């Protein structure tokens, strides 16, 4: 008997915010979406997380800013962005026309800056949520990254939550000794969800000149090389913290994405893969659907956190 072919249900939710599917683009790898309009049907994406925005425009770091490493890349872009005013006036009109959810990644030098940014973005039509990059240095605390001290990460979270009624996702840095403690501190600060991982700090050296390959000396490692580390952290956090987790780190195929979902991620973000395969997100959406059919699962929600451990 022929079974009725019904496309699997790919919808997921984070708090009150629903997504057509769990596939999002990672901040900093997809510009402001328009850059990929010729290569991706943007309307099909679960969400776009735009390039990180600060209160004022930032020029970023001197070149060289990127270097390829085995199955990965290092970047030290230096948070170059157009600033919140131009983001709203120049970039939002296009994004507003996309059917996908729009998540605005924000960054700042101080807790006050995060709050002011959040206020400015709240109420802007077309913005569905904020993602808080806490991997930036806290200028008032000697440049220690917000995301490496649980109390500071929690304070940023509270500050953003107090300034907006948009859903708040806090993006965690993996460059910490205890990712679960950091995640818990942010959850206790009121975050609606967590996204992880941001890049792993690394470096590369030109042996001929004995100079660093990046002008900034060190940079963030991303790409397939980081996937096992990201998956481990997502699993640990999803297993121990009650708010939803968005998995990020080296996802380039549907199989990668499904691994993160099984580990407990409610959604995933595709990052570096957008660079080498601009159509990666659509292929991943289709591939997740195919996987669910193969596995006889009616909904993607049935595989989230379905990891089987032991007997």
């Amino acid at each position, binding site marked *: 008997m022929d079974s009725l072919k019904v496309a699997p249900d790919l919808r997921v939710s984070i708090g009150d915010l629903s997504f057509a599917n769990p596939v999002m683009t990672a901040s900093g*790898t997809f510009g402001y979406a328009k*850059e990929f309009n010729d*290569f991706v049907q943007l309307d099909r994406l679960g969400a776009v997380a735009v390039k990180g925005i600060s209160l004022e425009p930032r020029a970023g*770091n*001197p070149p060289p800013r*990127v270097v*390829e490493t085995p*199955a990965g890349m290092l*970047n030290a872009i230096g948070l170059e962005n157009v600033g919140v005013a131009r983001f709203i006036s120049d970039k939002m009109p296009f994004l507003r026309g996309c059917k996908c959810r729009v998540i605005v990644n924000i960054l700042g030098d101080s807790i006050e800056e995060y709050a002011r940014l959040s206020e400015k973005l709240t109420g802007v039509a077309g913005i569905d949520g904020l993602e808080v990059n806490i991997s930036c240095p806290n200028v008032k605390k000697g440049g220690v990254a917000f995301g490496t001290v649980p109390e500071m990460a929690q304070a940023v979270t509270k500050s953003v939550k107090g300034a907006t009624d948009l859903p708040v996702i806090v993006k965690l840095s993996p460059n910490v000794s205890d990712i679960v403690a950091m995640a818990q501190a942010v959850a206790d600060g009121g975050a609606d969800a967590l996204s992880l991982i941001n890049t792993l700090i690394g470096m590369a050296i030109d042996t001929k000149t004995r100079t660093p390959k990046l002008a900034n000396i060190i940079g963030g490692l991303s*790409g397939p090389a980081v996937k096992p580390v990201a998956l481990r952290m997502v699993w640990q956090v999803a297993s121990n913290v009650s708010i939803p987790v968005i998995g990020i780190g080296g996802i380039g195929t549907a199989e990668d994405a499904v691994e993160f979902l099984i580990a407990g991620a409610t959604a995933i973000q595709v990052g570096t893969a957008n660079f080498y395969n601009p159509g990666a997100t659509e292929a991943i959406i289709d591939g997740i659907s195919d996987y669910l059919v193969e596995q006889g699962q009616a909904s993607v929600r049935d595989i989230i956190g379905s990891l089987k451990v032991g007997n």
Partner: protein
Amino acid sequence: MPQFQEKSIVVTSERLSESYFRLVLESPRIAAQAQPGQFVMAACGSTLDPLLRRPFSIHRCLGDGTLHLLIKIVGKGTKLLADLEPGESCDLLGPLGKGFTLDPDKVSGLVGGGVGIAPLLFLVEQTNARYPQHQALHVFLGGQTGDDIRQLGQEFEQIGASVSLATDDGSLGMQGLVTQPFEEALGTLQQVFVCGPMAMMAATATLCQQANVPCQVSLESHMACGLGACLGCTVHGADGNYRHVCKHGPVLPAEEIAWIR
């Protein structure tokens, strides 16, 4: 202008010298839109190492749906491309970036160094096709050794350009830098187009500035995406602001670049 991701089939791969080869790809959608000075991002192999695509200036589009790339083997990615055989495919994104703007009523100097010669052939061929009555095109080619530029020099001559050659080892043309014959001819030129190593472009741009001749440069940089998203391909602008090679360029007016830092 539309951009495409196109699985392109290798028609021929021609070795020009020990380190230079020319890849002819069936890439009708990209070729139909391409302008001289624009580039493509080519995937090198199908594994995760090397991970990123490599940027290449478009070398030629003859109107038959093919797209030609002139490539110098410098590392793992370009070696993989050199090993491609006819019938195999290579995934391309393009055409990307902003190209040259040539005024056919002015005498032009085209200065190419090494693999930077690539976009200049396309520029001459398109100028011939589009403006049959155009003013003279003087081509200045520099290479490490004669083998690198011999055939290219002949091809430029065959399509009506006057050609001056210079090689580091003196095995073809004059020995020394290509900027020497260029400087001697500069007084006759009204616009200049350059692509090559940074030092060569800086020297050419400086000569043009002194002679008050407009100069367009085609820049090269490492980049991850070619689409304006990674923001990795930064160069210092003369006004203190950064330019991104993929989006603002790769062709930019020379005066926009901070050549001396």
